């Protein structure tokens, strides 16, 4: 039986980077094949090549025994390959129906037959059991609903291969179940599914085989049901679990942060948490569940509508980021390019920025060049940022080094509480373990750490205590040995089906 899709020595090179390096991959009919790996491992590159969104530098793509060249997404779709990417390809100002059949409109002589379009859209959505009105404008949909439209787009023509890139990242429990049912139906019909996920639970639930990628190379293909979580992580990172995640001593001291009944302009409500010195408190939950928004309200980015925030015993409910920094709360934003770094600045100037007023003044209130040099050098050394990178523009640094600069900004002001929002997103495993070692040092040195993360293994392995957020509120709290994947995921999802 020929494979549905096969790649032979598939490679994609960019100047100086091998995004994909000689990957042999096989997808059989009727299987869910999970792609697993860190950010930058090559998963996305592989699927963009298979979906026709990008062309390989070398190697072959074979679909049902015939070598093909995929020039475009449309081309791939003609071969029965459809992809749902994480970044939506929806036009917000058009309706659901218009989006579903964009580039494939029914009609004649360039005129759209609106009625036919709506009918087709309604049929398609009904077939998928998606509860969506085809006439609605996409900009009015929630993220999960947009994801449903995106998935429905993949189903608009006869499907042989469906590629899903972290499709459940923003779906509720019920929507996820519906997607899994659909996947089951497709499998039964003989389609193949390539599925990217970071969630162990999903791999076990729907995966048949797992191919692990690292640094653009294929590490291996294993059976999804018989391979343990730790084995997969070790394949993914090339290190043992204990090498990546340090053992961090918990030594809870004075209460640093007390949040009570917080309600914010960004949708957080009735959230109460406590953070002490010398402990790492994890905040886990789905994207949009409020874990990030909670800490952004505490730091003064989002407006607080109700509730109180006390920091080191003082009421700081409506303090600005400026004031929170002065009081010793450092917030590390999740998107380093959008919110973290001043890109035209050197690493040195970025590190010094939060410390300028408080720590670097010398004679006549002018910035002391000596203090500036000492502080930035020390902070750079602590985060293991190489000397030659300190004077370079951060725009030219790698993601890992940029993240080190962000951490160094916090070290420079010597904060009491570090709020780290997705601290290791998009960094290589070497940098990752360096940053974890740093978090260990901060915590064991007596600072408090709040770890906001969508990377569940990170939360599981580093936190002493975990709060799980759901729908803008705290769904529960777990300590010590109660921190495990099943317990946390149980809190992630609404039990709305039981209620309904």
């Amino acid at each position, binding site marked *: 039986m020929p494979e549905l899709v096969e790649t032979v020595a598939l490679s994609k090179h960019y100047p100086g980077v091998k995004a994909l390096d000689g990957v042999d991959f096989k997808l059989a009919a009727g299987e869910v094949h999970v792609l697993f790996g860190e950010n930058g491992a090559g998963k996305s590159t592989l699927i963009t090549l298979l979906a026709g969104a990008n062309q390989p530098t070398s190697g072959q793509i074979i679909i049902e025994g015939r070598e093909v060249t995929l020039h475009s997404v449309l081309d791939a779709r003609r071969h029965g390959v459809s992809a749902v990417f994480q970044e939506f390809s929806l036009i917000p100002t058009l309706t659901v129906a218009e989006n579903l059949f964009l580039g494939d409109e029914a009609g004649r002589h360039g005129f759209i037959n609106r009625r036919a379009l709506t009918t087709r859209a309604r049929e398609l959505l009904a077939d998928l059991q998606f509860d969506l009105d085809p006439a609605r404008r996409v900009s009015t949909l929630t993220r999960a609903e947009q994801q449903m439209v995106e998935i429905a787009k993949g189903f608009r023509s006869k499907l042989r291969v469906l590629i899903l890139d972290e499709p459940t990242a923003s779906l509720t429990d019920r929507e996820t179940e519906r997607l899994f049912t659909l996947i089951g139906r497709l499998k039964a019909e003989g389609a193949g599914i390539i599925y990217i996920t970071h969630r162990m639970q999903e791999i076990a639930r729907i995966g048949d085989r797992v191919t692990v990628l690292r640094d653009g190379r294929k590490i291996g293909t294993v059976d999804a049901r018989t391979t343990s979580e730790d084995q997969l992580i070790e394949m993914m990172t090339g290190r043992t679990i204990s090498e990546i995640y340090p053992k961090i001593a918990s030594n809870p001291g004075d209460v640093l942060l007390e949040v009570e009944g917080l309600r914010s302009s960004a949708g957080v409500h009735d959230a109460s948490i406590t953070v002490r010195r010398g402990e790492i408190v994890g905040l886990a939950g789905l994207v949009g569940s409020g874990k990030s928004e909670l800490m952004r309200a505490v730091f003064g*980015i989002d407006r607080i509508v109700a509730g109180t925030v006390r920091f080191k015993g003082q009421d700081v409910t409506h303090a600005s*980021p400026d004031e929170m920094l002065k009081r010793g709360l450092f917030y590390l*934003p999740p998107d380093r390019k959008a919110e973290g*770094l*001043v890109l035209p600045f050197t690493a040195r100037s970025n590190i*010094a920025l939060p410390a300028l007023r408080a720590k670097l003044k010398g004679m006549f209130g002018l*910035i002391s*060049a000596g203090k500036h040099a000492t502080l930035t050098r020390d902070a750079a050394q602590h985060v293991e940022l190489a000397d030659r990178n300190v004077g370079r523009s951060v*725009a030219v640094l790698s993601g890992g080094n940029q993240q080190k600069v962000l951490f160094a900004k916090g070290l420079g002001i010597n904060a009491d509480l570090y709020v780290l929002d997705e601290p290791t997103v998009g960094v290589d495993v070497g940098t990752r373990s360096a940053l974890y070692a740093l978090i260990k040092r901060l915590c064991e040195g007596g600072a408090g750490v709040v770890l906001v993360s969508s990377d569940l293994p990170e939360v599981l392995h580093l936190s002493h205590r975990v709060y799980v957020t759901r729908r803008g509120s705290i769904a529960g709290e777990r300590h010590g040995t109660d921190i495990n994947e099943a317990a946390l995921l149980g809190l992630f999802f609404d039990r709305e089906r039981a209620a309904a």
Partner: protein
Amino acid sequence: MTEVTEGNSHNILKKLFLRMGVLPVLLVIALIVFSLMSNQFLKVDNLVNMVRQSVYLILVSLGQMLALVTGGFDLSVGTILAVTSVTSAMVMAHLFAGDPNAIWFAITVGCLAGVLAGGVVGIANGVGVAYLGVSPFIMTIGTQSVGFGIALLMTGGVPVSGLPGELSETLGFGRILGIPIPIILTAIIAIGFYILMTRTARGNYLLAVGGNAKAAALSGVNVRTTLLLAYVLCALVTAVSGLLLTARVESGESNIGGTMALESIAACVIGGVSLRGGIGRVENVVLGAIFIVLVQNGMNLSEVGSYAQMVVLGILLIVAVITDQIRHRMIAGGSGI
């Protein structure tokens, strides 16, 4: 071996380009061209004269730089010159006519009134951009029209005369130790700006806000007051330029600033200020302003007509912007994909 040295010199040129922009190249070209076209050009008298002529543009360009590094610009600098000139001249002429003996009182109060008037335009710009969220383009082109209209209404378009002669004897043509007073004043202000930009938190904040306002805010920078400061300081330094020009022409003119917005932006961009904000150096801006005046002076000596000069200035601005984009791509492009 040769390959290595070639690579090095290429790298040095590239680094110089990334740091200084296109200015050194243009400066050399201009010097060569004009000294070939006119034998007057390289004479000491002419060079000193050029520096003296440059001070007005240097001051405005320093102000413009503040707006540019925050990621905006100030198109109302011409109006600020006009408002300052007309206000200071009217106050001075009025006081001087009322009491011809109180010369210095009239000059001092007139100058303060002029700076105040210019400052008001700056506050309007700053409040509009920083607190009301109006785009710098709309805000400053709006105040440009409003201010210019008011200056014309105040004077009916006629130059304000009757100023005390002492004004031009000092701020216009005066010298201390043989150095023209406008040059001394400009040097002091330029040094002040240099200290502001390199040695104070506030100066660093101006750059940070332009480089990434969100990151700056999360690093404890008050973005609004920083933006307000940029536009107010820009207006104040432009107002000083307006006073010097008023003293030079010995009358209050509503038409003195016509091309100043264009010229000051050109001077900044040629001096390596990024139009995207976040990058700008005082010393390069001063050189950029001198370069613009040098080109104008050279064209005058080479008998290039004023219409053709407009063409050249416009082309220079566009070339500078294109080069800025290339430079930006080279700085950002180092990160690979």
